[in-house]
Structure formats: C-alpha cells, structure tokens
C-alpha cells in the first residue's frame, strides 16, 4: 500500500516537473521579473497590477533592497534591477549596465517631541548634522532654541533613529549630510549603511517609523509616504537658498526641476541639496538598471514597453501613493537613450 502511494506521489512530482519546463520564457513574453529598492516597491506593484489587467503581462517586482537589486542584475538573476542610489558612470561601464530614473520621492526627518506639531520645528543643516554626530543631545539645546524662537522645547534627551539595514534611503540621507558638512563627510561618509556615531537602528522604514512613534524625544528619517501614512511629525529644513521648507510634492518637484539631467552622464544625478528657494533638500530619484547587452531582446523590449507605459499613464497612480513622477522632459531624454544604449547580442537596438 505504501509503495503504491509512493509511486503515485512520484508520478505527481514528475508530472509537475514536466509541466513546468514547458511554459517558461518561450515565445511571447508573459512574465518579467525585477528586484531591488524597497522605496518604489508600492508604486511598482500598483503599476504592475494595472498593466497586468491591461495586457496580461505579469511584471513581478520584489523589494530586496537597492544593493540586492544591483547584485541581482549583475548576476542576471532578474530582468531588471532597481536602486535608490544611482551608480557612478564608471561602475555602469565596468559592469555593462544602463540606468535611468523612474520615480522620485523625498526623505523626511521626523520627530517625536511632546508639544511639537508637524512643521513647527525648524532645523538648520548644521544642527541636523550635529544631532546625528551626537554633539547635540538635548532638545532644549541653545542651538535648536535659537532657530525656533517662540517654540518651547522640553529638556529631554534626543534619541537618534537610523536604518539598521543597508538602504537607499540612508544613502540619500547621508549624501545630504556629507554635502552640507565636511566633518560628516570625513568621519562617517555617504553609503547605504554607515557606522553611525549614535542612535538606534530600525529595520526598514517601518522599523524607524515605529521607533520614532514610540520613543519620546526621538529623531529619525523616513521616506515621505511613511511619514504621511504614519502621521509622523515632520520638521522643516533649511535649503541651499536659505529658506525653511516643508516636505511635500511641490518642494520635491522644485528640487527635481532644478536638476541638470541633460548634462549628466549615465543619468548620474543626485537630487540632494539642490538650488532654488522652494527645493526640499533631501530629494531623491529611484533608478532602474538594465543589462546594456541583452541576451533576451524580447524580454528587454517588454520591460521597456512597461516603463514607457508607466511614464505615460502612471502619473496619477504615483501621486496617489505620494510619489513624484518624472517630468516630461526627463522622460524624453531617457527614451532617447534607450534607442542607442540597449542592444541585443548583434548590436541591434532593442527599442523601439
């Protein structure tokens, strides 16, 4: 009896195996896989779902982190990778990759101070750096007080919260800190994970958000959507033009508008600390990574068609989820670059 059951099981396994080797990746492209940055995951999921209803093509994007996205596209285990930190042009050349910006957002410092409401607290860049370096330890420090006349701040300890996992958000945040402070640049630097001088680490944006919500006197940084959805108390930052700005769609867009996409080789543009009096200083774009030479041109074509559709039809969905779509001008630049940069093995362009 046992043997019969076993033979039956084995037959089932064999059936499943043979069924499966048949279908995948042959002929018409029905499935695309991508992986990488966590920040754009919700919007890519949204786009993919809408696109599937329209075309029947399943685009599966998984958030494994920006570093993971880079690693996987290099290993060709996915059809495209995604990263919140742009790769340097020389790295792109070295690994035979091509990148383009897909969506933008902002990183927002958030606090939990009794009696302080969203947008009330203003902090200059120098002060923010000093807090993250552990030099300013109390909220009633004269430096913070002098920037906030009229706001009564309690004398409680500042608990700095940062990301524990390597992350593109951290990359954008530390990029900003490095730009505005020589000391930060030398002591800590700009990377997806750094040796933090002080504070506690939360796993993922949600980890940081929940720590900030719980710990009195905490200061953390999260992506805009998390600050908004969790109703966290954001602060105003001083931008390069010297104005205090609040994080929102308009200030993110202002930062993006001032960026020089055209002159940037390999779309290497970092949107932190941009000029303009309305610019939010910690804005960032999320990038898509593709192999420059495509083994499977039909898959690459499907990938590009998807992103083209997103550029053209995905703006409203993006705004609904608190993301900033790319300006028309940048989209055109990107699609021009597709024509010349992405090729199949014989050197023929894949797009259009």
């Amino acid at each position: 009896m046992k043997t019969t059951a076993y033979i039956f099981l084995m037959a089932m396994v064999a059936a499943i195996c043979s069924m499966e080797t048949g279908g995948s990746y042959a002929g018409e492209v029905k499935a695309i896989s991508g992986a990488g940055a966590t920040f754009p995951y919700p919007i890519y999921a949204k786009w993919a779902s809408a696109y599937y209803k329209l075309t029947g093509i399943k685009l599966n994007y998984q958030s494994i982190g920006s570093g993971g996205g880079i690693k996987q596209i290099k290993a060709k285990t996915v059809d495209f990778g995604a990263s919140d930190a742009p790769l340097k042009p020389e790295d792109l050349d070295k690994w035979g990759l091509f990148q383009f910006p897909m969506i933008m957002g902002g990183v927002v410092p958030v606090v939990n101070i009794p009696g302080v409401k969203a947008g009330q607290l203003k902090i200059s860049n120098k002060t923010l750096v000093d807090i993250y370096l552990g030099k300013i330890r109390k909220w009633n420090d004269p430096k913070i007080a002098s920037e906030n006349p009229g706001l009564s701040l309690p004398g409680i300890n500042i608990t700095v919260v940062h990301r524990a996992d390597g992350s593109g958000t951290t990359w954008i945040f530390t990029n900003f800190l490095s730009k505005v402070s020589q000391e930060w640049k030398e002591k800590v630097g700009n990377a997806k994970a750094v040796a933090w001088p002080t504070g506690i680490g939360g796993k993922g944006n949600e980890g940081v958000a929940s720590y900030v919500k719980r710990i009195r006197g905490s200061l953390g940084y999260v992506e805009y959507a998390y600050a908004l959805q969790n109703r966290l108390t954001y602060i105003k930052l001083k931008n390069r033009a010297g104005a205090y700005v609040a994080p929102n769609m308009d200030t993110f867009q202002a930062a993006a508008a001032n960026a020089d996409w055209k002159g940037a080789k390999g779309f290497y543009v970092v949107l932190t600390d941009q000029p303009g009096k309305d610019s939010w200083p910690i804005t960032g774009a999320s990038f898509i990574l593709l192999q420059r030479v495509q083994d499977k041109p039909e898959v690459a074509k499907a990938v590009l068609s998807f992103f083209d559709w997103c550029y053209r039809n995905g703006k409203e969905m993006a705004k609904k989820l608190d993301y900033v779509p790319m300006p028309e001008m940048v989209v055109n630049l990107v699609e021009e670059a597709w024509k010349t940069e992405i090729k199949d093995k014989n050197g023929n362009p894949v797009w259009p």
Partner: protein
Amino acid sequence: MIRSGTKGRILDIIFANGTRICALLVFLIIVAIMVSLLAGAWPALKKFGPSFIISSQWNPVTEQFGALVAIYGTVVTSIIAMLIGVPVSFGIAIFITELCPVWLKQPIATAIELLAAIPSIIYGMWGLFVFAPFFGDHIEPWISDTLGRLPVIGPLFSGPPLGIGVLTAGIILGIMVIPFMASVFRDLFEVVPSVLKESAYGIGATTWEVIKKIVLPYTKVGVVGAIMLGLGRALGETMAVTFVIGNADRLETSLLMPGNTISSSLANQFTEAVGEIYTSSLIALGLILFLLTFMVLALAKYLLIRLTLKEGVRT
C-alpha cells in the same frame, strides 16, 4: 524459491545502499555548507586575520569589519534567554510531572509546546508592535529606577527606556526556548524510575526534596544537555531578534541599549551588501555562528553520551 532468494538479495543490496547513500547525503550537505561558507568568508578572513574576531569596528564605508559587537550581542542575548528560560522550563517540568492533575497534564504540555510552533516572524511582529512598546513604557523605567541604582550591576540596567534593545531581545528569546527545554526536562523527569521516587516519599521526603535529591541527580547530565540544546536555538534565532534588538553596531554596557547579533546582521545587511569584503565579512559572521552552534551542540552531545554511558553501567 532460489530465484526469489537472489531477487531478494539484489533488492536487499539496492535498498541497503539506498539508505546508506541518503545518510551520506546528510553528511555531504553539511560539508557543502561548510565549504561554501569558508570559501565565501575567505577574503575577509585573509584581509583581517584573527583580529576580525576581536575588533569592534563595523564600518561599511571604510570597509573595516570586526565581529566582536555581533558575537557579544549573540552571546549576551542567549545568556539572558537562558537565565529566563532555564528556571521557567524547570518549573513547568516540575509542575507537569509532579503537581498537575492527570487530566490537565496533556493540555498544558501541548499548550507549552505550541509556543515552539509559532513562526519566529510572528514573534518578531508581536515583539516590535506589541511587546516592545509595553516593555518600554511600563517595565524598563522601573528597571532603571531600581536595578539601575544598584552598585556594580547598576550600569547594566541604566539608560533611556527605549523598549528596544539587548534585554528585550533576550526576553523574547527566553520565551522562545522555553518549550524546547521544558519538553526535554519533562521527558527526563518522567524516566526517573518511580521506585526511587516512591521510596523517598515513603521515608517522608517532601516533593521538593524528592526533586532535589532524587530526580535532579538522576537526570543531571541530561538536564545540562537540554540546556545546551536550548542555547543552540537561542544563538541562531534570526527574525524575532532582528525586529527588537535595535541593530546598532556599537558596544554598550547597558542591556537596555540597542545591540546586534550575528543572525540579525545577516538578515539586515546580506541583500544590501555590495563589494567583496563587505559580503565576505557577513559570510564570515555566518561561519562564526555556525561554529558557535556547532561547539554548543558538540558539548551537549558529549554530556548526553556520558549520560547514556552511565545508564549502561547502572543496568
């Protein structure tokens, strides 16, 4: 008759060797894991040498890595887990074997063992969203006001009540290892021959005296082995710890402060690590963890073997 005999013999050989191959496969898997870990960790071990183990630096920017913080966190959280888990499991085992009415025995034993069945990610979510806030608001202020004021051990228990940290992680680990140890303790206590126990009761010993003088000496080595098995569990636990330990790569005196463990470093950083040395250092951490659990297990086995040897002598 003869034909079926040869056929039987051939099938015999096939079957025997089939089982042998499968058993060897288990061995090969471990070898393969060791080799792949060693190969992955090699660049980091070559670059940092033995100082990898004693360096407390973990700096992805300058690519300086050391395992001390993660090893410290792993060991300390496991010790806390044992300090909670061992007495509690012991108490539960005593309750089930000596005190509990018979009809309640099975339900309680099952309920405790169900604690082990809950997936560790559930412990993590519960820890982050439910336990840590409660612990930080209600227990930690009290701890730092009382224990934190004491001389000598005071610094271990002072600091801001974050709710997140080494102590919280240790407590959750403690809860997670209780079912493993409690069920082994119970099994051990139940094999103590009732003749021994009853003769002790017969001369007027109390329940506690029977446990202390009869049950414990009889099962001593097994108890230590069970503790080691629990310790092995605690050392390797990943998801639950990652959510509540605070993930800070610094050495802190206070147990209320955040720390890091080897497995949570891996879970947090493995997918994000770019660059050979960074990835390799993480794999080296994995190798250390693997060796750590290996040693604990070897110790447990050694003790358990001594137990069975002793039993052999006795009978």
